[in-house]
Each structure stands twice: as C-alpha cells, then as structure tokens.
C-alpha cells in the first residue's frame, strides 16, 4: 500500500499545477467582502433560545431509557451474571448482557476502509471476555432514566481476572513499532543522527512525559435510536455521520442505506464524538426490546467508554553548530495503545516538517495495554509532540545564549526537511515577528527569575505551533437553485460549534454571487450527499472542494439552460463569474443574467447538481502545514508553586481566515485547552487496576474561568494558493505549542524546567 502511495507521490511531484484537480487556485481565495467577515453564527439564535434539538432531546413515542453497567476488572471474563433484582426493579423493560444481546459483527476499525469508524475492532457485548476496566457488561432499559440508573446498580457481576497489562512502565518493556503512524513509517531517518548529535557543538538530550487525557465536551455522549423493520434511525452526537452509518450497517448486517444518522447539533466534538459502544448497544437494545431507545452517558460512563489522549514518553535530542544550524534532530518515544485500535498519537509529526537539520531520527513505538482504546483528541500528536520539541528548542537556545525566536530563524527550512516538497505557503517567522512585537517579547529578560512582583515570579515563553493541512477524499456536495434564485448547498457534514454552518453559507454565497440571506447550507444528516468526517481540521477545505466541483457542474448546466437567448450566449465557463444573483461575463460586466431569469426562461422551477470532490493530490505535491507562534506570560507563586497564566497571544498562519469571529473562538478555545494540557488535566489511571479514578469534572481538572487570562489572537490571512478558499483549517492548531510556551515561561519565571505534564505546583516547590 505504501509503495503505491510513494509511487503516486513521486509522480505527482512532476505534474504541473494546472493538471492537478483541486490544485488550481480557487478564485475565491482572494475575494473579500462576505468571506472573512465576522458573521455571527447562523445557528446561534436557535441555540440561545433552547430550540436547537440535540441528539438526547429528540422526542419519540414510547421511548425507553438506557444505562450501562461497567466492568470493574481490566482483563478476564465474567463468571456469573445476576440480573434478577434489576429485572424486578420498577419500570425495567429488560436487562441486556452478552447472554441475550443480539448477535452483531465486530466494528470495522477506523481507517481499515473509507467508511469504517470503529474505535476498536473488539466485538461489543458478544461474549464473557473483558478487555478493559469499564467495558460495558450490561445495559438496563427502563421507562425512565432514573429507573434505569437505579436498576443498573442492582446488576451483580462476578469475574475471574486474568493478568492484565495496566502499568505503562511495564508495558513499555514490550513496546514495538506499529505497522504505520497514520500512513507514515514508524522509523524515519536521514543520515546518522546519533553520530551527528555526539559531534555537535551544542547538545540537549531530554525526556518528556505527557499524561492521559479524557474527552470532556459539555454535551454528554447521547443517542436516540429506533428500528422500523430493518431500517435503523440514529439521532446521534457525532462528527462522522456516514462512517457511523456504514459501520453500524455492517455490525447489524444491513445495507448502509438502511441506516439513517442525523446529527444537526453537536455540543463539542474535539475527536471524541465518534462511534463508541453506546450507540451500538442502544441499537441492539432497541432491536431486543422493540422499543425506541435513548442512551445518554453519565459523565463517569464517558470516561469509561470513550477513549482519550494516550500517555507519551518522548526523547528529544538536538545537536547544533555554533552558528545555530541543526546537525541532529532526534525525536523518539513510546505511547500506550491497545491491540484493538490504531491511534498512535503521532507526536513525531511536527519534527518532520518544522525545522531544517542535517540529520533526523524520528521514531515511534507503541506499548500495548489493557485499557479503553485511546483516540483522537484535539491535535493528537501535534499537541504533545510540540510540547517536547519546543521545550527542547528553548533549552538549546538558552545553552547557545540565543533568543529562542532567533534560533528558529536560523533553522527555518526552505522546503520540507523530510519530504523535500516545497511548502505551499509558510509564514512562521512572520508569525513570530508580528506576534512577538504585539506581545512585547523584547521585554523578556532571558535570565530566569529576574522579574518578581511580591510573591510572584513572572516569566515569558514562546513556542511554535503547527498542524497539517489535510483534505479528506470522498465528499460530495449538492447545489440546488430555486426559482427565486436562492440556493441550498448540502452535504452530510458536521457542526460541533466550530462555525461550519456559518462559514459554508458565507462561502456558498460568495461563490454563487448571492446575498447571505438567499443561501442555506444543509448538513448533519446522512440523507444528504455523502460528506467527509469532521476531524483533522479538514472539513472546511474538504467541503469547499466538493462545492467547487458542484459549482463547476452548476455553471455548465446554467450555460446549457441559458441557451442562445441569454445575454450570456456564447460564453464558456472560463469566461463567466458569479455576480449579482446570477452569472456575468468576466470581460464585459454588462452581460449578466440572474439565476431566476435563466430558470424562468427554461421553464424550470429548480436546478440541482451534485458532484464529488477530486482527490486531494495537492497534499502530495506540496508540504501543506499551518504554523503559529504561541506566547505566554505566567506568574509562579514563590511560596506555593501555583502557576497562573496571565496573558497569552497566538499568532497564526493558517491561510485565509474565513470568518474572523468564529475563527477567533476556535483559536482561543484551542489555546484554553492548551492551558489544561500544560497545567491541570490528567486522567488518573490506576496502574494496579487499569481503572480511571477521577471520572468527574470535580476531580479531572479542566481550566475554570479564573484560570483563563486575556487571550489575544492574530493571523497572517495569507491565502494558501493550493487550498480551496485559500484556507488550511483552524480547528486544532490552537492547542499546539501552548504547553511548551507555558512551560518555557515557567522556566523564565523560576529557572525550573518541568518536563512532565501537567505542571502542578508540587513540581515547582
């Protein structure tokens, strides 16, 4: 597979731009007006008024409510199940266990096929085996949620434990290379990096550790499901509509078109709103009971059956010449994973693209553990990988008595250092210059502990953030023009609060030359043309590529319908542009006809076209990455070690920014999550039992309002010539680099390097 990929990559490198589908610059990328404007969310009023109906609020006749019972051992099997008390409890419809659950196929693992999104390929409640502490062993269905919750406490389960691997330190001893790291080889080398390191004038060689994290979107995972014969309807909170439908279909042995998934509103995704056991079990319980079923996970259940960010142990070693250029860049390490999933937390990815070095050694291993399958969580890999890499750079800069920004200037590569592809668009140094100026970087005293205000030591830190541009293949879009000239653009994609619905309406209006009020963007339902999943900051570009393709079809159809009586007669698509609610000649502005007029003359009450996005070959020809300069000012209490972030600034180069308001929220949200990564978040996974011991928002500490300072964001707004709309995606880059910027600021304040997250006060006493 990778040989073919490599061959395609090599071939694509020699193809001229104009031959690349999807790689010719999007005419909208330079267009201003509606695009880029700080338009308020189109779904905002509904949400504020409580009228946006989330998955757990969809009304249905005769609903039964589900609660899960979780295993209390990490590995072994069930020896006895006593459900009699639960079954006899008031309101109970049924208790489902492996003994009576419908037979189901195991979920197909994520990325094993285009529409497979199984978080792991373990069968769900099909046998007595236990694979992780927290695995569902029973589902109780009752007339009310409270009755189900109560009866679930009456299910008695006994187990026989088998030896489990629940200690990362022990698991590490058997760490091994995974087959690939998201399609990349687990070991990548240029030159002999260890040798170059040893011969380098300046050296740092450091170990960093990052803990497990759990997803804590405010909206709990929930689904409302119903069977009509062999047709399954799932109202879900998901960021992968079509994948959920396809995977559920295979699990239940029906066709993908027999599964209808709807998810118009999602209260936060971050990688966690995927297909987990709860939707599968709810559908199974619905089939078993003949009742529609609602399942809403408790916060504890979210911790037990929804994966999170896995733990990492990383080594970064840097060797530099006297002039600052790198001789060696080594980034290696191990993450915890299971044998049943494929999510290796690609922490070495930033080092593949960020800096020039004479030699590289980038290597990742996985340590198999008996635990809930880990998963994607905002900037998997890049968030924790930049922590290690960017802290190490800070230590190297200090050793070299160089300003950390100056060091980055000296190692800025001309082209991608590992693929040798040209960058499509990269302005990292501009981010540092403009961000540093606004932040007041020149006021930083490089000497640690130099600034003190009462008990508080004050320090500044910076770091690079980075996230790749990806465009998901496989998305389609439909454009429908109504008789009045208004348009509906539709595709089965996702709005989890990022602003997708708003930005896509803006983009469609700009592309079709319509005012915003005359455009509707439909999404969130598998009845619409197949969309891409929302992950990897890919949605905006992926949707846009499909809309561009559909628009090409639309223009062709309009030319055909316009015929010879139109002012546009004789003009080809390349001579036309969308303007003033219709099409116009590029060269002769007077030649114009509205969509309404074209349709009326042709006797049509609407026009509908649909097209699929071309394959994302631009990613093979160019190194396409967003970058950022992250700045933080922290105060560390010299008595107690408490760390407070008092100021942050993120300076981003993500191509074109499409909506200044929703983009600001995305960046800020990511940076706040970065504060959690740096200072507070840690899943307490007991190595003796494999059990998560802090499954609540009281004890799993996300930053509270008082932990979040004023955060400023700015951006270059330089369109990427090779991305649809000129935009590279902004959902994840906000969290990258933040933990390092904060850790580096803590060092500047105190002279203490903390290399294991979170930076809690005990590490600074």
């Amino acid at each position: 597979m990778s040989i073919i990929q490599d061959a395609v990559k090599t071939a694509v490198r020699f193809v001229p731009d104009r031959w690349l589908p999807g790689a010719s610059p999007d005419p909208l990328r330079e267009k201003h007006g509606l695009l880029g404007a700080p338009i308020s969310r189109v779904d905002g009023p509904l949400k504020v008024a409580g009228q946006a109906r989330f998955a757990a609020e969809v009304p249905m006749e005769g609903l039964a409510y589900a609660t899960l019972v979780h295993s209390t051992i990490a590995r072994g099997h069930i020896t006895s199940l006593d459900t009699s008390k639960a079954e006899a409890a008031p309101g109970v419809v049924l208790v489902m266990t492996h003994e009576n659950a419908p037979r189901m196929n195991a979920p197909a693992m994520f990325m094993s096929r285009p529409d497979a999104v199984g978080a792991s390929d373990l069968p769900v409640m099909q046998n007595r085996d236990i694979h992780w502490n927290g695995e569902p062993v029973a589902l109780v269905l009752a007339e009310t949620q409270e009755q189900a919750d109560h009866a679930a406490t009456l299910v008695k389960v006994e187990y026989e434990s088998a030896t489990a691997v629940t200690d990362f330190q022990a698991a590490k001893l058997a760490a091994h290379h995974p087959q690939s790291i998201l399609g990349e080889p687990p070991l990548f080398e240029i030159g002999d990096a260890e040798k170059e390191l040893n011969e380098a004038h300046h050296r740092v060689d450091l170990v960093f550790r990052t803990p497990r994290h759990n997803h804590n979107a405010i909206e709990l995972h929930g689904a409302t499901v119903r069977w009509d014969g062999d047709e399954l309807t799932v109202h879900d909170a998901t960021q992968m509509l079509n994948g959920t439908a396809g995977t559920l279909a295979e699990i239940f042995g029906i066709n993908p078109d027999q599964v209808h998934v709807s998810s118009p509103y999602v209260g936060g995704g971050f990688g966690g709103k995927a297909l987990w056991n709860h939707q599968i079990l709810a559908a199974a319980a619905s089939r078993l009971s003949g009742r529609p079923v609602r399942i809403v996970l408790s916060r504890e259940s979210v911790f037990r059956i929804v994966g999170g960010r896995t733990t990492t142990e990383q080594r970064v070693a840097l060797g530099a010449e006297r002039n600052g250029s790198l001789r060696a860049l080594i980034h290696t390490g191990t993450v915890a994973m299971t044998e049943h999933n494929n999510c290796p937390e690609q922490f070495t990815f930033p080092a593949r693209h960020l800096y020039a070095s004479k030699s590289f050694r980038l290597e990742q291993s996985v340590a198999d553990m008996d635990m809930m399958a880990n998963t994607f969580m905002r900037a998997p890999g890049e968030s924790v990988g930049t922590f290690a890499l960017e802290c190490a750079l800070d230590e190297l800069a200090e050793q070299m008595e160089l300003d950390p920004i100056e060091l980055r200037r000296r190692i800025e590569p001309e082209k991608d250092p590992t693929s040798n592809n040209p960058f499509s668009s990269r302005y990292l140094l501009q981010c540092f210059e403009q961000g540093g100026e606004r932040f007041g970087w020149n006021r930083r005293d490089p000497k640690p502990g130099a600034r003190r205000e009462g008990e508080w030591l004050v320090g500044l830190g910076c770091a690079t953030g980075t996230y790749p541009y990806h465009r998901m293949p496989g998305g389609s879009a439909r454009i429908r023009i109504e008789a009045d000239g208004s348009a509906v653009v539709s595709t089965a994609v996702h709005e989890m609060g990022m602003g997708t619905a708003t930005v896509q309406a803006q983009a469609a209006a700009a592309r079709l030359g319509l005012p915003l009020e005359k455009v509707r963007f439909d999404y969130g339902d598998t009845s619409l043309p197949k969309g891409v999943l929302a992950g990897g900051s890919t949605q905006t570009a992926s949707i846009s590529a499909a809309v561009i393709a559909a628009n090409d079809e639309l223009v062709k159809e309009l030319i055909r319908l316009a015929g010879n009586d139109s002012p546009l007669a004789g003009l080809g698509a390349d001579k036309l542009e969308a303007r003033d609610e219709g099409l116009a000649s590029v060269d002769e502005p007077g030649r114009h006809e509205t969509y309404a007029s074209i349709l009326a003359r042709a006797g049509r009450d609407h026009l509908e076209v649909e097209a699929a996005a071309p394959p994302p070959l631009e990613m093979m020809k160019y190194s396409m990455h967003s970058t950022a300069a992250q700045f933080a000012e922290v105060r560390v209490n010299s008595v107690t070690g408490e760390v407070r972030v008092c100021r942050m600034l993120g300076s981003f180069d993500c191509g074109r920014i499409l909506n200044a308001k929703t983009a600001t929220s995305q960046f800020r949200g990511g940076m706040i999550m970065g504060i959690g990564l740096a200072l507070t978040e840690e899943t307490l996974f007991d190595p003796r039992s494999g059990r998560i011991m802090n499954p609540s928002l009281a004890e799993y500490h996300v930053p509270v309002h008082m932990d979040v300072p004023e955060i400023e964001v700015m951006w270059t707004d330089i369109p990427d010539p090779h991305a649809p709309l000129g935009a590279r995606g902004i959902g994840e880059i906000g969290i990258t680099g933040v933990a390092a910027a904060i850790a580096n600021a803590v060092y500047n304040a105190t002279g203490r390097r903390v290399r294991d997250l979170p930076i809690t006060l005990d590490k600074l006493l």
Partner: protein
Amino acid sequence: MTPFQYERAATAPDAVRMASNSASAKYLGGGTNLVDLMRETIETPERLVDVSGLSRTIETRPDGSLLIGAAATNTALASDLTVRRDFPLLARAILAGASGQIRNMATVGGNILQRTRCAYFYDDAARCNKREPGAGCDALDGFNRIHAILGASPACVATHPSDMCVALVALDAVVHLEGANGTRRIPLADLHRLPEGRPDIETVLQPHELITAVEIPALSFARRSTYRKVRDRASYAFALVSVGAALDLSEDGSVRDIRLALGGVAHKPWRALKAEDALRGQPATEANFRAAAEAELTDAAPLRDNAFKVELARRTITAVLSELKGDAA
C-alpha cells in the same frame, strides 16, 4: 440512586423524631454532597429528613459572639456584614470553596458533615474502609496526592474537604446539637474523629443527632485574620493545603495570642495547637513562624504522592502569619 422517603421538618425536635424511625435516615441540607453520594450509591438512606427549613438566622449577640442557624447557606454566612468585619477568616474560607451555585445551596450544617473526596471512597470497585469497614484501603498505595499527612491511620488516609470548618475550628466554634435525649453543645474541634481503626465513624454524633446551630465566641483579634487556600487550579478545586489564622500582637512585637488551623492535611479540620503554643509570647518573626510550622508538622507522615504537602504547609503557614503580621504593622 436508591428510592427513599422524603420528609420536611418544621422544628429540630420534629426532625429528630422523623429520623429516629429509620436506622439509615439522613438529614438533608442543600444536598450538594449527600445527593451526589446517593447518585453514586455510596449513601443509600431509606429516608431523607429535609432540615433546610430550620433556623437560618445569623445572630450577633451583645457579647460579640455569633449564633448561626445550621440551615444558613454558605453564601448567606460569607456575605453577612458582621462575619466579614469581625471574622474575615470565615468569609474568605467559605468563598474559597466550591462554586457560587453550590454555596447558594449548601448549608452550614451540611458543610460540616460533608464527606471526603478520596477517589477510592467514591468508586465502589475500590476497597475502602470508610465505605466498608475491614475491606482495606486502596488509597494507601494508590493516588494519594490529595490525602492526609497528619493524624491518618493504616485504615484511612482521607482528608476532610471543608474550607469553612478550618476557619470555624480556628475560631473555637461550638456546635449545638439536638438528639433523642435532648440538646448538648460540643466544640467543633471535638466533633470530627481521626480515622484510627474505624474511618467509617467520622464524628462523635449520636445516631440521628442533628446540628442545629454553630456558635462562634467573640474574639477581638479575629478582625486580623485570613484564610489562604492552595489548590490545583484557580477555583473549583479542593485544598491541597489551606491555612486559617488570626494573630494578636503585643506592642513589643511578640505574639500575644494566635489561632491557627489547617485544611487538606487530615481526616478533620486540623487545629494547629502545637504551632500556637510555640508562638505565644515569642517574637513575631518569620523564623519563629517557620519554627512553629515545623513543630506542628514534626509528626507529619506523608504518603507516596503527597510529601510536597509538608513543605507546602510549612511555607503557607509562614506566609500567612507573615502577612497578618504585616497587616498589623
């Protein structure tokens, strides 16, 4: 949650009578801790007697003492003008705890009787002597970063999580109790037990004995008092270490009198009597503050994850007393 009966009491004797009908009855204040525990089936009372309608008055008496109805909310007590002026330590301690919403619901009586936040107490898959006497303690060799360094036993290393109680115990508060055999008063410092062999028995209360009021005796120098809480985030986290203190200085700069209590370090709000004794009559210097802190912490027995608390307590005590001394200057 296990089904339960609910009754609302109009008077304290009524409440005691209602509770006495059921061995597992519990009094319900704001429910901010008890209801959570019931949801987790850690608490499974057959009957709840709602006492949130009993006295919530906060009365300043002629001698300068305060009498606080046990049903007063945490918010009401923290915003009471006399409390803020005469006992700032108490107002600050309350405001350092929980969240605005929780403080609006939580009562003074309920705050005193809230239970530990030990993760192994909350998880019925874990062993816990407090939940199930004799079962063992998984915190002893587990995650015990937030656990006790003083007064713990091999049976239990949990802490009492209240901020308010730290201030109250520093202020020599007395609790008024109503029981089947009438009323009595005991110092708050004697209400909570150390775990010893029976961590499931957390107080000296008799079955169904009800806290009806808390009395704070007048303390002239309590106006020079404060509370400092050290925790893992800026708000909405329990104390790793907290210090409540009031300081009275003589004209010659020596300590005439002092009240000092610690939170987050023991199974009960910890009155630091050794440190107080070490300081009375001594010059109020940072060195002496530190020596007094050392004296209090000589018996500290840290666990795997919480050795930092010993140093943190030492530093926080010293800083708080230095701050109070500075205020006096």
